[in-house]
């Protein structure tokens, strides 16, 4: 699986050769804006992240959990065949490595383990990519999640394009990565000059961040400001469309649907991606707990930046900027945080 041009965006899909990569393309991103543009060079990875994230493979959008048949005295569950395909992820950014690690904490580290996630997760081969340019909405530096990949990969590439040369400085992250590298004909040890070039590519990216998020006491800040008037302000703009939750690489919420056929003898249980922005999400008898857009936007943002820390030990945000880019009205999580911080409520 790797990046591919489709529907005027760079998405993650099955790729069969390097020709499938969006060579020579870049993206221009800002609040509510995403455009592809041709580059003047032939960079393989000269773009930031698109609307897809790797969660579509590890935490599938639609999944049947089980089928069941009614029996004389009871019912029989027919276990689902576990996913057997092995994935290789090509071009995983540092922010995305952190996002995968964050979802690992959700699905693997608690009292219960998600067997579907666990099977898919164990089988992936990861080729990471150190970004050579920052996206217009990126802020991985603020979140300490990049741009340099530091762990969680089998191989990590940094693309270097010079006047006469175009090469990838490759860092080995595992034995499997090393084995693969040994099998490749075209490689040699990188010179110290080449390594310095690779470092400077990453440094340049780090200096180009499109956004900045002040994470100082961010949990306390949001915990103190559940009634801040800024939530009114954002509620007037937010369409509650759920785009941010769909594109966010760490959002994991789902719904469960029970179905039956007309005979009533065969039932199925399905799991599907859902979003805290829907009214259904918080429905208890009588109505929805979060009936206003105010409360739903607040839930998403305080979960992502604050309560996630108490739940899982890290922020839920990796600074990829997707929520800013793909919000139809360009709501910016870094700007909302700044606005609350600057006009914090005093006393309660």
């Amino acid at each position, binding site marked *: 699986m790797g990046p591919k041009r489709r529907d005027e965006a760079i998405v993650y899909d099955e790729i069969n050769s390097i020709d499938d990569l969006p060579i020579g393309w870049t993206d221009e991103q800002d609040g509510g804006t995403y455009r592809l543009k041709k580059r003047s060079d032939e960079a393989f990875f000269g773009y930031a992240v698109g609307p897809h994230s790797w969660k579509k493979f590890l935490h599938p959008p639609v999944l049947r959990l089980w089928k069941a048949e009614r029996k004389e005295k009871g019912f029989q569950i027919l276990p689902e065949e576990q996913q057997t395909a092995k994935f290789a992820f090509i071009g995983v950014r540092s922010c995305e490595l952190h996002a995968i690690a964050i979802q690992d904490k959700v699905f693997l580290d608690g009292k219960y383990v998600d067997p579907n996630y666990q099977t898919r997760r164990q089988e992936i081969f990861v080729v990471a990519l150190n970004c050579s340019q920052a996206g217009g909405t990126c802020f991985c530096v603020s979140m300490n999640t990049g741009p340099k990949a530091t762990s969680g990969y089998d191989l990590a590439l940094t693309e270097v394009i010079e006047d006469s040369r175009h090469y990838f400085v490759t860092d080995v992250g595992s034995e499997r990565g090393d084995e693969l590298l040994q099998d490749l004909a075209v490689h040699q040890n990188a010179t110290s000059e080449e390594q310095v070039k690779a470092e400077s590519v990453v440094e340049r990216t780090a200096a180009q961040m499109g956004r900045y998020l002040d994470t100082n006491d961010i949990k306390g800040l949001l915990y103190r400001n559940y*009634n801040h008037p800024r939530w009114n302000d954002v509620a007037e703009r937010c369409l509650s469309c759920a785009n941010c939750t769909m594109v966010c690489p760490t959002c994991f919420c789902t719904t469960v649907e029970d179905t039956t056929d007309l005979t009533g003898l065969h039932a199925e249980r399905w799991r599907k991606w859902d979003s805290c922005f829907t009214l259904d999400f918080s*429905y*208890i*008898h*009588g*109505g*929805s*707990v979060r*009936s206003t857009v105010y409360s739903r936007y607040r839930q998403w943002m305080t979960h992502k930046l604050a309560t996630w820390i108490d739940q899982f030990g890290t922020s839920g945000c990796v600074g990829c900027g997707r929520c800013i880019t793909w919000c139809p009205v360009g709501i910016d999580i870094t700007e909302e945080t700044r606005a609350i911080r600057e006009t914090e409520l005093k*006393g*309660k």
Partner: protein
Amino acid sequence: MADLERSLAGTSFCEGMQPFHISLLARGAGERAFQAGQFVFHEGDEANSLYILLKGHVSLEVSTPARGAIVFQTIGAGDALGLSWLFPPFRWHFDARAIEPTQTIVLDAGRLRAQIEEDHDFGYELLIRIASVMVTRLQATRLQMTDMYGAGDS
């Protein structure tokens, strides 16, 4: 100051109050306006003020998870808003929200509590009016509770 005293004197809450008691009230009082939809106070916040409404309309609400906010009473111009400042733990028991643009005179509760202690004549004048507000509201609440419009007992 004289303006505030005049405003206070014109309210039904202060009707019959001696001018020098009204002056005492006005000391340390301020004015505060609220936009339509703006919260005056939230359940659980420190109850620091007594509000006298000059203009507008405020709803008293309790919020429930699924049914949302339920309005159990509204308070209009001339009336007093806020009773929880009288007794510990001095925390609001309900939400209060301006339904339309509302102007209020705000009296500092800490000061009022001290004044009530120091000057019992003043304290009596204030508390008898507050008691009257409480009795009126209690009687109304009791009637509301009987669900007298209901088609029959559920």
